[in-house]
């Protein structure tokens, strides 16, 4: 039997945790062992003190800074974090598609954690992702995030309804579905930042050369949560 060094064991464990099949299994309809969520501190609309939208470069910089603080908040709560990219493609007037990509995270408990406790963490992180002092409002407050709980067959978006005053306002759910599968042409998906390049069937014309991809600068594998139809 081969004996691994701690560094080798950690590298193998990390690689397994980030593997595509293991990621899909986190969202499977069969009872998973742990709850899981997809979160970000990124915002598409981010305004300055006078209410004007920031320039694109500033918006991305502020969003990146916010995500670093979110990472610290997640780890401080004893949760694990794996970077992914969340993507959406909105169909506008005359069928014109607009793509939106957000640096995001898969979040899970490190050890055992009751669902309600996990959800309470997620609600707090959605309301105040950067751990700002005071009662808010906070600049990076989120609309919602994706959650899959072991007791529930379907993943769902948990969200507020506008102007939240606390984590308790994140109590509305909208079902996404009971399957996680490789992305084909669905307008929303999650992209891994580790592992092999995405197959061509997962990619489409809206991909741009400057899109975020894997750590190696390639489009990562992508999956979509849905109803399996």
């Amino acid at each position: 039997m081969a004996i691994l060094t701690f560094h080798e064991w950690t590298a193998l464990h990390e690689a397994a945790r980030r593997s595509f099949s293991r990621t899909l299994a986190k969202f499977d309809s069969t009872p998973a062992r742990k709850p899981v969520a997809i979160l970000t501190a990124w915002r598409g609309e981010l305004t300055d003190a006078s209410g004007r939208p920031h320039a694109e470069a500033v918006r991305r910089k502020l969003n990146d800074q916010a995500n670093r603080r979110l990472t610290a908040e997640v780890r401080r709560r004893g949760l694990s974090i794996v970077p992914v990219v969340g993507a959406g493609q909105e169909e506008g007037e005359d069928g014109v598609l607009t793509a939106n990509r957000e640096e995001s995270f898969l979040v899970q408990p490190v050890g055992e954690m009751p669902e309600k406790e996990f959800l309470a963490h997620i609600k707090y992180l959605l309301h105040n992702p950067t751990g700002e002092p005071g009662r808010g409002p906070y600049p990076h407050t989120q609309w919602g995030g994706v959650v899959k709980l072991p007791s529930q067959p379907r993943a769902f978006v948990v969200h507020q309804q506008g102007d939240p005053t606390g984590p308790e306002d994140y109590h509305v759910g909208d079902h996404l579905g009971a399957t996680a599968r490789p992305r084909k042409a669905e307008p929303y998906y999650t992209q891994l930042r580790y592992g092999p390049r995405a197959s061509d069937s997962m990619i489409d014309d809206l991909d741009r050369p400057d899109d975020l991809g894997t750590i190696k600068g390639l489009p990562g594998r992508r999956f979509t949560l849905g109803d399996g139809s």
Partner: protein
Amino acid sequence: MSDDLEKKDADRLDELKAELSGHFGRFTRWRALCVERDVTNVEGQIRLAQEVLAAPSTGTNAEWLTHLLRLKGGKSFDVDEMLAGDGPAARKDET
């Protein structure tokens, strides 16, 4: 309504649709609202477009996805009640 007025409203609606499309998620939110409130006339669609443009938005995938799910006929539920009981409970304002 005269042809001129109808044309003016149609042009205004086109302007608002273009403005909605410039903010990720708002066009879908507007479409979902039109379906939920059964608004099919131009005046009503203009009013809803103005409402959506004036409302706060995060411009995130999660927000857009919520409206897309509703546009496809999905019904919201109360997460806390679902965890307290045996399954998803429809929200009180939707039953």
